[in-house]
């Protein structure tokens, strides 16, 4: 397996490099293999989200090299799926229509959208079924609970079968039970499809449950201060989060976060 996402000594300051502004990201270097699930944890406001924006090409770095699939990132990538803390579904569209949105607008699909509509509808319904939203296809977003909206948002991020999924605290606004349920949903999707994932979170249990590897990011300016492989067997279950090795890993990460916060 080769490097899919590579960052070399990347530094980024909002509004470009200034004299006295603190960079959001400083000298970040990381390598993510194709199909790998990586989590970034760190104190809030530490530049984790900025890293995602750099990888996706939505925000250019001031210094350093960013490569995705071997190509330097110079403009927004087009094979990325994204989901955020806020589900940002369009309220005037049904769940199904929301999921189809990327196919209507993305560079690769918009030309053939009408022609392949039946096929796309099939894909979207199947995907909604996988995340447990069967029967809610024609519901409006406001009729869905927060957890269901977030499921639909995940489907929207995955409908165009992106190679790279970027998740910015997608479960942070949900209650604990729903959140843990969605860990399972996301893990299932990932195990079926094996896309590459970068998950930004400040929930250490979430990071250990989902990721192959966890990076700890320092507080601003965000630097990667620690990297930890998570060698636990998959599929991981909620039961396994109480196992000793799981708990140890969480503690280990907590120690590093503690150092970062104290520094």
């Amino acid at each position, binding site marked *: 397996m080769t490097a899919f996402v590579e960052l070399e000594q990347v530094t980024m300051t909002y509004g470009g490099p200034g004299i006295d502004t603190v960079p959001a990201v400083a000298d970040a270097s990381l390598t993510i293999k194709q199909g790998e699930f990586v989590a970034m944890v760190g104190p809030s406001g530490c530049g984790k989200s900025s890293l995602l924006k750099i990888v996706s090409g939505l925000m250019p770095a001031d210094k350093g090299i960013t490569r995705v699939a071997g190509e330097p990132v110079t403009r927004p990538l087009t094979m*990325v799926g994204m989901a955020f803390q806020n589900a940002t579904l369009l309220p005037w569209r049904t769940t199904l229509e929301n999921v189809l949105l990327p196919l209507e607008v993305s560079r690769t699909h918009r030309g053939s959208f009408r022609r392949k509509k039946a096929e796309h509808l099939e894909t979207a319904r199947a995907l909604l079924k996988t995340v447990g939203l069967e029967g809610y296809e024609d519901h409006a977003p406001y009729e869905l609970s927060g957890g269901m909206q977030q499921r639909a948002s995940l489907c929207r991020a995955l409908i165009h079968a992106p190679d790279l999924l970027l998740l910015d605290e997608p479960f942070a606004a949900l209650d604990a039970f729903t959140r843990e349920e969605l860990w399972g949903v996301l893990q299932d999707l990932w195990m079926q499809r094996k896309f590459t994932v970068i998950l930004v979170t400040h929930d250490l249990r979430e990071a250990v449950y989902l990721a192959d590897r966890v990076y700890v990011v320092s507080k601003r300016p965000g630097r990667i201060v620690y990297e930890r492989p998570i060698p636990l067997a998959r599929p991981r279950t909620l039961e396994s989060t109480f196992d000793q090795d799981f708990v140890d890993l969480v503690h280990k990460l907590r120690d590093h976060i503690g150092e970062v916060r104290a520094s």
Partner: protein
Amino acid sequence: MISKIKLAPWLATIGLFVFWEVVCRLFSVPEFILPTPSASIAAMIEYWPAIWQNAFYTFWVTMVGFALAVIFGLALGLVTGASAVVYSAIYPLLVGFNSIPKVAIVPVLVVWFGIGTIPAILTAFTISFFPIVVNVATGLATLEPELKDVLRSLGARKIDILLKVGVPRSMPYFFASLKVAVTLAFVGTVISETVAGNAGMGHLMLTASSSFRVPLVFAGLLVIAAMGVGMYVVFVLVERRFVGWAFRGGDNG
């Protein structure tokens, strides 16, 4: 509970009229200062042919001016909201223009177009134009940054973002502005008719007040108010029909 809410506006309106009637009678207010509502309604019945004719004229003039405001307001709002540069360039001009009392531009319009219908249409247009532009532009300009990121990371074209997300998203703002704009349009028309008109409710009321037929003036005011409320209700219904989703499936859904 709901029936109370539905009854409330009627009760409040009737209450106001009763209060007005009682105060006038209790303090024996002379009719040429403040006529009672019953005297105003009597005047309305007495002069109904003249009122009807002028009210109809005012109504269609207002609708033409309002229609222009909808077309141009929507177009300018979309352009303004879609581009941050245009937004910052045009906004101060719009605010400045909106701050000018429209009564001050009627004489100018009369110089350009003569006394009559065109200045009234243009006054209705200029006064009702602003809320539409501002609302549509706001709806477009306040697109969630996360949603913008999702779309940009798909390689979506600006025009797609505008048509599939921006425009539908600004529609609740647009329909909300129509309710306000249509009532303002009546104000514009009547101002123009009062300052320089030869027909319409403004002209009628000016003529009536110059001969101290104050109940007729009040009859005119009531008719204008009724037309304003009527059109407001029409646009409430239009709003619910087209952007019902914005009401989150509450009792309007």
